[in-house]
C-alpha cells in the first residue's frame, strides 16, 4: 500500500488534477464569462444607439424651437398680412416637427393622443390663437422632459452594463491567469513525479 502511495505517485496525481482543473476552467468557465460579456456588449451597443437617437431628438427639438422663435421675430418685421401668415405657418410647422419628433418616444397609445393634440393646437395656432401657442409651448416642455428622462434612464442602464462588463472581464482575466498557473503547476508536478519515479527505479528505492 505504501509503495502505491509513494511521493512520485502523489505528485503525478496532484499534477494531473491541476491540469484537469485548468482544462475545466478553459473550456467551461471562461467561455461562460466571455459569452456573458458578448451579450452585454450587444446590449451596450443597442443602448448607445438609443442614447444617440435621443440626443439627436433633443438637439433637433431645440434647434426647431429656436427656428420658431426666429420666425416669430421675423413675423413682426413684415407689414404684409400674407407674408405674416406665411411666416406664422412656417413657425408653427417648425414647432410641430419638433413636437412630433419628441412625441415619437412616447408609447404608441400615448403617441396617438399626443399627436392629435399637437395637430389640433397647431391648427388653432395657425389662426393666431395665443392660447394654442402657449399650449404648444407647454407640450414642448412636457415632451422634452420625457425625452430627457428616457435618455437619463438609458445612460444609467449604460453605466450599469459597463460596470458589469468590466466586472466580468476582470473575472475572465483572473480565471485565465488561474488556468495558466494550474497548467504550469501541473506540468512541474508531473515532471517532478517523473524524475522522482526514475530516481526510485535507478536507486531501487521502495
Amino acid at each position, binding site marked *: 500500500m505504501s509503495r502505491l502511495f509513494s511521493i512520485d505517485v502523489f505528485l503525478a496525481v496532484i499534477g494531473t488534477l491541476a491540469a484537469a482543473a485548468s482544462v475545466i476552467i478553459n473550456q467551461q468557465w471562461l467561455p461562460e464569462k466571455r459569452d456573458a460579456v458578448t451579450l452585454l456588449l450587444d446590449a451596450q451597443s443597442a443602448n448607445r444607439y438609443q442614447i444617440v437617437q435621443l440626443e439627436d431628438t433633443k438637439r433637433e427639438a431645440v434647434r426647431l424651437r429656436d427656428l420658431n422663435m426666429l420666425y416669430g421675430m421675423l413675423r413682426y418685421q413684415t407689414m404684409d398680412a400674407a407674408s405674416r401668415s406665411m411666416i406664422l405657418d412656417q413657425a408653427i*410647422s417648425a414647432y*410641430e*416637427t419638433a413636437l*412630433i*419628433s419628441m*412625441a*415619437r418616444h412616447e408609447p404608441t*397609445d400615448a*403617441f*396617438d*393622443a399626443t*399627436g*392629435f393634440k399637437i*395637430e*389640433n393646437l397647431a*391648427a388653432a395656432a395657425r389662426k393666431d390663437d395665443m392660447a394654442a401657442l402657449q399650449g404648444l409651448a407647454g407640450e414642448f416642455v412636457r415632451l422634452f422632459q420625457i425625452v430627457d428622462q428616457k435618455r437619463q434612464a438609458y445612460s444609467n442602464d449604460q453605466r450599469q452594463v459597463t460596470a458589469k462588463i468590466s466586472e466580468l472581464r476582470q473575472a475572465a482575466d483572473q480565471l485565465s491567469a488561474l488556468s495558466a498557473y494550474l497548467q504550469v503547476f501541473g506540468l512541474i508536478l508531473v515532471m517532478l513525479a517523473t524524475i522522482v519515479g526514475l530516481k526510485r527505479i535507478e536507486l531501487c528505492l521502495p
Partner: protein
Amino acid sequence: MMRTMTRTLALAASLVLLIVMPGSAQEATVITLTQTGCQFTEPEGTDHGYTTTAPEDCKAINRKSREQRLAAHDVLRLEPGRYIFRVSNVNVPYELGFYLRASNRALIPFAPRVSGGGLGQGETQDYAVDLSPGDYLYSCPYNPTPNYRLVVSE
C-alpha cells in the same frame, strides 16, 4: 380683332389657372365614416355593439380585441387627390374627433394630415385633406378607436 385677343387671353388665363391650381379644378371625393363605441364601422365591416360611457372603457376593450380586429379590418385604398372625410358620431355619449396622419411617425409633420374634435353624439363633421401617395393611419383618439390603415397609390 379685339374680341379674338380677349378670348385668347381668357383661354390662356384659364389654362394657367388649371396648371397652377390643379386642386381647384378637381372635385373632392366624400368618404363616409361612422363611429360607434370604440370603432369605425366601415373598416371593421360590422358594428360590434361595444358600450362605452368614457374613453377608459374603450381603452380596456381595445387592449383585448385590437390585434384581432385590426388583422381582419379592410384597408382603405384611395387614389391621390382631394377628399372629404365625413365622420359621424352615432351613439357615443362623449365628444369624438378624427385624426388622419402618415403611418410612419417620422413623416407625420411632412405628409398630408387632418385632425379635429368637437364631434358630439348624433353629429357629423367634414374633414378635408389632399392626399398624396403613401401609407396613412386614421383613428379617433377621443373614442378611442384602433388605428386603421389607409393606402394612397396611383
